[in-house]
C-alpha cells in the first residue's frame, strides 16, 4: 500500500511537470489562433482613451474583423511597445509619436508602408495637414496616419489663484518672475511641477533654450555638434533656469511630485499652485479629474518671451502629433486600412475636440466651435498654425538610448545637485544616433 502510494506520486509529479512544459511550449500557438479574427490596437493609456474606445466600437459595428483596444499606462508605453513589437504579442496597429520614435522599427523592417493604402484612398493623406502628415514619413515612405491631435506645451494657470494674488498670465520673463514673487507672497506654490516624472522638468529646458538660443541650437546638438551645449546661449538658458528655481518658483519638493499620478494637476486644480507648464493634454486631464475647474478656472497662455533672446516668441515646443502605424506582419491589412480611415471622419474630429485634443485634419477648423472649449481649441489652433518652429520634445527627438542619462542630468541640474559645467558635459556625452 505504502509503495503504491509513493509510486503514484512520482507519476503525478512527473506528469504535472511534463504537462506544464508542454503547455508552455504550446502557448504561442494558442494565442495565435485567438488572434485570427481580431485587429489588436495598442494605445498610450490616459484620459484620451475614451475617444479611442468609441472609434473601436464604431469600427466593430460594420467590420467582420473585430478591433480590440489595448491600453498601456503612460509612463510604461514606450518600453512595453518596443519589448513586444518583434514578438508574437505584437499589435496590428499602434500609437506612436512619428519621426524618431518609429525610425528603429522602420530600420528593422517591422512596419507596413502605407503608400499602397494611400494610392487606393488618397484621402488617407489629403485629409491631413501636410506638415504634420510628413513627420511620419521616413525615407520618403509614409508609415503613419495622424491620430489624436497636436500637443503644444502651454503655460496653464488657475484663474482664481492668479486673481487673488493680482497676477496676469506673464507675457515676458520679467512678468513671470514678478508673478512668482506675488504668488509666493500669497502663500501658494507659484508653479506646480511633477519633477518625479522628469519629463515635465524637461519642458522648462525646451522652452528656455528655444526662446534664448532659437531652435537652431538644439538641432545642431541633435545633429552631433557637441559644442552647441557649451555655447554662450546654452549657458545663458541654464542661468535663467537656475534663476527661476532659486527664486522658489517650484517650491522645494517638486521632485517628490508626479504628473502621472495626478499630483501636480491636483495642485493646480485645488488652488495650491498658480501655474503649470504642460502639454495640451492638461486640459483633458483636468476635464476628467476636476471637470468644474476645467470649465471655470483653467487658464492658458503661450510661454513668455525672453528679452534679447534669438528665438521667435511664437515658437512652440511639444509633440507635433500622434500617429497610428501598422505592422508588416498583420493578418488584416484590409481591416487596418479601413480602421485608419476613421481618423479623419467628421465624427471623430468632433470627438477629439470634445475632450480638448486638437486633430490636424484639413476640416478641423470648421469644427472648432463644437470643441469642449471653443476658445481653447481656437487658441491652440492659431498658435500651432502661426508658429515659425515646432520643437519636438527632446526625449522624443534623441534616440531612446539617450533618455535615461538625459533625464538624470536634467533633474540634477534643476535641483542643484549638478552645476552648469557638469550638465553641459552630461548633455555632450549623450548618444545622438
Amino acid at each position: 500500500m505504502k509503495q503504491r502510494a509513493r509510486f503514484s506520486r512520482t507519476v503525478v509529479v512527473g506528469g504535472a511537470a511534463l504537462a506544464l512544459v508542454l503547455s508552455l511550449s504550446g502557448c504561442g500557438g494558442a494565442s495565435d489562433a485567438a488572434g485570427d479574427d481580431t485587429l489588436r490596437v495598442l494605445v498610450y493609456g490616459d484620459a484620451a482613451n475614451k475617444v479611442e474606445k468609441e472609434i473601436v466600437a464604431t469600427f466593430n459595428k460594420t467590420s467582420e474583423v473585430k478591433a480590440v483596444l489595448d491600453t498601456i499606462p503612460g509612463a510604461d508605453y514606450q518600453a512595453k511597445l518596443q519589448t513586444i513589437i518583434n514578438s508574437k504579442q505584437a499589435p496590428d496597429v499602434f500609437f506612436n509619436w512619428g519621426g524618431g520614435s518609429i525610425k528603429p522599427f522602420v530600420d528593422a523592417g517591422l512596419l507596413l508602408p502605407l503608400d499602397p493604402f494611400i494610392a487606393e484612398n488618397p484621402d488617407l493623406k489629403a485629409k491631413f495637414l501636410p506638415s504634420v502628415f510628413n513627420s511620419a514619413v521616413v525615407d520618403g515612405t509614409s508609415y503613419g496616419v495622424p491620430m489624436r491631435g497636436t500637443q503644444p506645451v502651454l503655460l496653464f494657470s488657475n484663474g482664481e489663484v492668479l486673481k487673488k494674488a493680482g497676477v496676469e498670465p506673464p507675457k515676458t520673463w520679467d512678468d513671470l518672475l514678478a508673478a512668482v514673487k506675488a504668488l509666493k507672497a500669497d502663500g501658494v506654490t507659484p508653479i506646480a511641477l511633477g519633477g518625479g516624472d522628469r519629463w515635465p522638468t524637461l519642458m522648462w529646458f525646451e522652452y528656455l533654450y528655444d526662446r534664448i538660443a532659437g531652435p537652431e541650437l538644439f538641432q545642431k546638438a541633435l545633429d552631433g555638434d557637441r559644442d552647441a551645449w557649451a555655447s554662450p546661449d546654452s549657458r545663458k538658458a541654464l542661468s535663467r533656469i537656475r534663476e527661476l528655481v532659486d527664486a522658489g518658483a517650484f517650491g522645494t519638493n517638486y521632485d517628490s511630485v508626479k504628473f502621472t499620478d495626478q499630483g501636480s494637476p491636483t495642485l493646480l486644480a485645488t488652488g495650491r499652485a498658480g501655474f503649470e507648464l504642460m502639454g495640451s493634454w492638461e486640459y483633458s486631464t483636468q476635464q476628467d479629474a476636476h471637470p468644474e475647474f476645467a470649465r471655470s478656472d483653467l487658464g492658458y497662455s503661450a510661454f513668455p518671451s525672453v528679452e534679447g533672446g534669438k528665438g521667435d516668441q511664437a515658437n512652440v515646443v511639444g509633440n507635433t502629433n500622434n500617429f497610428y502605424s501598422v505592422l508588416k506582419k498583420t493578418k488584416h491589412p484590409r481591416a487596418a486600412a479601413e480602421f485608419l480611415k476613421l481618423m479623419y471622419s467628421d465624427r471623430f474630429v468632433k470627438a477629439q475636440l470634445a475632450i480638448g485634443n486638437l486633430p490636424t485634419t484639413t476640416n478641423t477648423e470648421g469644427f472648432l466651435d463644437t470643441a469642449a472649449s471653443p476658445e481653447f481649441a481656437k487658441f491652440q489652433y492659431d498658435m500651432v498654425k502661426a508658429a515659425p518652429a515646432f520643437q519636438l520634445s527632446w526625449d522624443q527627438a534623441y534616440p531612446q538610448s539617450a533618455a535615461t542619462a538625459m533625464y538624470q542630468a536634467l533633474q540634477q541640474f534643476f535641483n542643484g545637485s549638478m552645476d552648469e559645467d557638469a550638465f553641459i558635459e552630461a548633455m555632450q556625452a549623450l548618444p545622438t544616433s
Partner: protein
Amino acid sequence: MTRTAALSPDGQKVRKDGPSAIGAGRPGFLWAVPAAVFFGLFALVPLIMVAVLSFASWDGLSDPEFAGLDNWRKLLDDPVMIKSLWLSVLLTVLGVAVQTPLSILLGVWAAGHQRNRAVLSAIYFVPMLLSVAAVSVLWRAVLDPNMGVPAQATWLFGDGNLFGKQATAIGVLVFVSTWQFTPLHTLIYQGAARAVPQVLYQAAQIDGAGTVRQFFHITLPQLRNAIITSMILMVVGGLTTFDTVLILTQGGPGSDTTISAYYMYQKAFKSFDYGGASAIALLLVLVSTIISLIVVRLSGYDKMRSTMEGL
C-alpha cells in the same frame, strides 16, 4: 554518463556497477528529475543566454551582433554602474541591520503561547500577504508631500521632499522593505524560537538567570541557524531589490537610488541596450554568489552544525 541507473519497484535507485548497499535507503535519482528539469529550463538556459548576450549588441529589434568585450569595457568605465553596486550593497546592509534585530525580537515575542499574541501576530503578518507593487504604490501615496501624511506632519517631514533627496529616498526604500519583509523573517524566528527545548530555560531558571540573560545565553545561540537562513534571504533579496525602486523612486533623484538591478532594467527597457543589461545581470549573479558564499563560510553554516548538540 555510462553508468546506468534503474528504478526499483519502490522508487529507490540501484546502481548496477557498484555496491548496491550504498544506494539502498536513499531517495532515487529520479526524484530530482522534475526539479532538475525546471532548474535547467528556467535558470540555467536563460543564464547561458544572458551570458552570450553580454558579448553582443542588441536593441531587441534586429539580430544581435557580436560586440566582443565592448559591453564589459563600457560597464567598468561607467560611474553610474559603480555607484549602483555601492547602493545595492548599502541598501542590503541597511536592510539586514534594521530587519534582523526587529524580527528576532518580534519572532521571539510571537513564539509565546498567549491568545492575545496569536491575534496580534496574525494582524502583524498582513503586509507579507500584499504584493510588493501594491505596498509601494500605497506608500508612494501616503508619502506624497502635498496630498499625503507629510503635508499634515510638517514638524517631522519638513517640506516632504522625501523622494527628491538621496538620504531620505534611501530611507523610504529601507522603511518600505522593512515594513513588507519583517513579517517573513519574524515567522522564521518564531518557528525557531518555538523549537528551543524548554529544559534549557528550566535549567537556567534554577540557576537564577533572568529573562535578559536567558535571551542572550539561550535563545540567541539557539537561533543561530535561523539567523543565517534569514540573513541569506535578506542579502539575496536586497541585492535583487527592484520593484520598490521602480515604483517609489525610479532610481532618482538623478541616479541617487539607481541600484544595480534597476540600472539593468533601465539599460534593457528604457535604453534598449540588451547587451549592456545582460552584462549587469551577470555581474549581479557573480556578486550575489560571492556574498552568499562569504556569509555561509563565515557563519559555519556549511558544516550544518546542529544547535541540539549536547542535549
